[in-house]
């Protein structure tokens, strides 16, 4: 299969073009328009699907396991077409036992396979968190380097829309505190594609936090992103928008909100630098600190709970390393310290909105800012 995609590549057709053809998204003969800067449109869902497809073709040890990943084509259609292409030995539908299939995946990884374990959401991964931490994260260390665990745990993380407390928790901070794990939270299609490929190729256990509401979002991507060997380095943040007045860090869906906030702030003459963290662990402290040393002000944004959150860690890191550069206290914008409510109006109040980020940035810049209408 790898040879096949190589042949197609030689014939001048990118592997994603052939993927798009196979999945009837473009007609044969229709050329996917490609310019040197991104003008191919790729949804996040397709970015994930194509990454899985290519990695499974390239390495026969990679397999997908989880609930509804096969016959149902994936609970969110991320694994669409994979069962048909690779067969039931590589795409496994499981009974409803997160603890079971996570443990099974870890055991397979001990033996030398490369499982990609899908959780319907990371909330359900809590039923398997012992296997993620005690069996996967710690084993390379505990075994004295004898047993490596090249496993990827992926699935939607954080709030969706109207799914309430047990389906909306953000786990970035919890997994991010655990040594032995790598934790990734992508934003754009390029991020999803490059980082999932990197995660599958990585010999360490990786927690890959996706976002349900982003699956349908479309992003322009360059030809380079569509190449079958495209990967992004784990542990490097991306500066989505350059600025000089205030640094805003965010991950996952909040990057989009931060970019919108930056547009709003530009109207008021504040030039915000938006950093897309991409990795929670390792955290790219170098990029964050370099940015703060340029702008002297920092606002961190996340959907999760405030106490012991990602913003708390970034704050501590910046205070430790760039204290003299700060001109204003660091502001953490986080979700409310409550289990997620269901009612739409309450849910909106429980999550950061663009205006919250704008207000925080203005506070950091010592601008007059009216208090928010809601408490």
């Amino acid at each position, binding site marked *: 299969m790898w040879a096949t995609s190589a042949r197609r590549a030689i014939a001048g057709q990118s592997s994603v073009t052939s993927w798009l053809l196979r999945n009837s998204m473009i007609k044969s003969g229709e050329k996917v328009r490609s310019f040197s800067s991104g003008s191919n449109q790729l949804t996040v869902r397709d970015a994930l699907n194509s990454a899985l497809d290519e990695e499974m073709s390239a390495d026969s040890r990679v397999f997908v396991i989880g609930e509804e990943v096969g016959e149902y084509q994936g609970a969110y259609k991320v694994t669409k077409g994979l069962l048909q292409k690779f067969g039931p030995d590589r795409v496994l539908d499981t009974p409803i036992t997160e603890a*079971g299939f996570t443990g099974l995946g870890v055991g*397979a990884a001990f033996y030398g396979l490369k499982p990609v374990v899908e959780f319907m959401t990371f909330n359900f991964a809590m039923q398997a968190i012992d296997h993620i931490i005690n069996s996967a994260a710690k084993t390379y260390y505990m075994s004295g*380097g004898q047993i490596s665990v090249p496993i990827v745990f992926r699935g939607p993380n954080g709030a969706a829309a109207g799914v309430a407390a047990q389906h909306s928790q953000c786990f970035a901070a919890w997994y991010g505190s655990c040594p032995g794990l790598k934790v990734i939270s992508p934003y754009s299609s390029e991020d999803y594609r490059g980082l999932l490929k990197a995660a599958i190729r990585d010999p360490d256990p990786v927690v890959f936090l996706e976002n349900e509401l982003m699956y349908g979002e479309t992003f322009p991507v360059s030809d380079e992103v569509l190449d079958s060997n495209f990967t992004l380095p784990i542990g490097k943040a991306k500066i989505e928008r350059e600025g000089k007045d205030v640094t805003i860090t965010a991950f996952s869906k909040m990057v989009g909100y931060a970019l919108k906030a930056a547009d709003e702030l530009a109207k008021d003459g504040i030039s915000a630098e938006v950093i897309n963290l991409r990795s929670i662990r390792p955290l790219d402290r170098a990029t964050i600190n370099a940015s703060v040393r340029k702008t002297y002000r920092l606002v961190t944004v996340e959907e999760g709970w405030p106490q012991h959150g990602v913003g708390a860690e970034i704050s501590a890191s910046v205070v430790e390393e760039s204290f003299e550069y700060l001109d204003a206290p660091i502001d953490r914008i986080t979700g409310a310290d409550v289990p997620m409510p269901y009612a739409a109006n309450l849910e909106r109040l429980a999550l950061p909105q663009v205006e919250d980020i704008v207000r925080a940035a203005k506070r950091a810049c010592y601008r007059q800012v009216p208090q928010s209408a809601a408490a």
Partner: protein
Amino acid sequence: MALIRRAGRSLSMLKRSSLFHGKQKKQRQQPIVSPSLPNLTPHLPSSLIRLQINTTYSAIPRGISSCSFRSSYIPNRLLTSEAQPKLPDEGIDDTQFLDFPGVKNTAFTCDLKFVSEKSEEVPCYRVLSELGEPVDGAKLPQMADALALRIYENMITLQVMDYLFYEAQRQGRFSFYMTCSGEEAAIVASAAALSNEDVIFAQYREQGALMWRGFDLQEFAHQCYSNSADYGKGRQMPIHYGSKKHNFVTISSPIATQLSHAVGAAYSLKMDRKDACAVTYFGDGATSEGDFHAAMNFAAVMEAPVLFICRNNGWAISTPITDQYRSDGVATKSRAYGMRSICVDGNDALAVYSAVKSARSMAISESRPILIEVLTYRVSHHSTSDDSTKYRSGEELSHWKVMRDPVVRFRRWLEGNGWWNRQKDTELQSHSRKKIIAAMMNAESMKKPPLSDLFTDVYDSIPTNLKEQESYVREAVAKNPNLYPSDVPL
């Protein structure tokens, strides 16, 4: 001719409708099935097919074997209208045939009867009596004297090692130990029935299996003393052995997590089509964990070649069996998962060897999981942190320790065959003792793991933050050498 056929068809539709309306119950016919008819509708239960065939082709003479519902090869002139015998009305349940997707082989009943909580008796397999003599009617497994003696020597060495390491812990030489007194036969004889390619996922009381694989006394001592020669690089508590070259996965403390790992590894072995299986050991207490259920269910559904070996030793620290589960033993639990099992006398080394050997070949050739319950008794305290006299009687303990020693039982069988004697026994005991003490002295005198081992193996390649931390520590050590422990190399 066409008229008869059409009449036949409308008659059949009338009959089919009687299933639903029940009016013409008495005219229902006994299903006739020609054995040569192909199964054209495999997704339907065969009962329904019979009826369908019957109602449309009841009149076809036997001998015409090429049949399809729409075949035009059957000449119309062969159709007759034969009256079928009337069935006696015995109050046959009209909807006798069960086709719910959730069950395969069951029938309806109109008796309000509950399934008993008491399971069918599962007999316990053994071939040697308590005195080490073959039981009447037992077929002993093929075991050459060399293999039998190797099993015995392992068991004795294991006993001596356990005794000396336990004492060492009491003397403060290392922090923790767990012995397997009373379970030597269960562990060593089962390991002897495996091949070196089978991957072992143990719980924590199976050092005998690792010893069988060739992990030597010096390596055991290094791990317990956590010195620089420990394969675990000093990161694990004593008895948390692991050795990749011996196909023995590092012990992990949380109970029963190794069960689902074993299923995962078995699945990989199956995909690789290897002549090997995964083997997992666990105690009676582990059967209460969620992972037990998950792993058993998965292994059965995925048809993974894994042996689940449960050392049912009657105690989980201080929890007796009566507080652990209400089923009658562990072997009976496998039926609920559609899995095969066997219950074995774990103190009969020959029986354990025979059962595991047989189970292993079934697991690999038929690609199925097998549960093997080895009944035994935990003579030891749970660990060096436990004093079991607090929760069980001295009489019970001394009965099992003195009267039911599995090693003695096997020795009697060896002596009965003329392969062993008292003198050899004394020599073996004293030889093992000397070797173990020497290994302990050697391990104790070695340096601890170096400082660099604190930071490596968290990830595949050491990340920058840990490199920084290591350099900070080394700077601090260079500045204050008197504060740094002398037996930890840099």
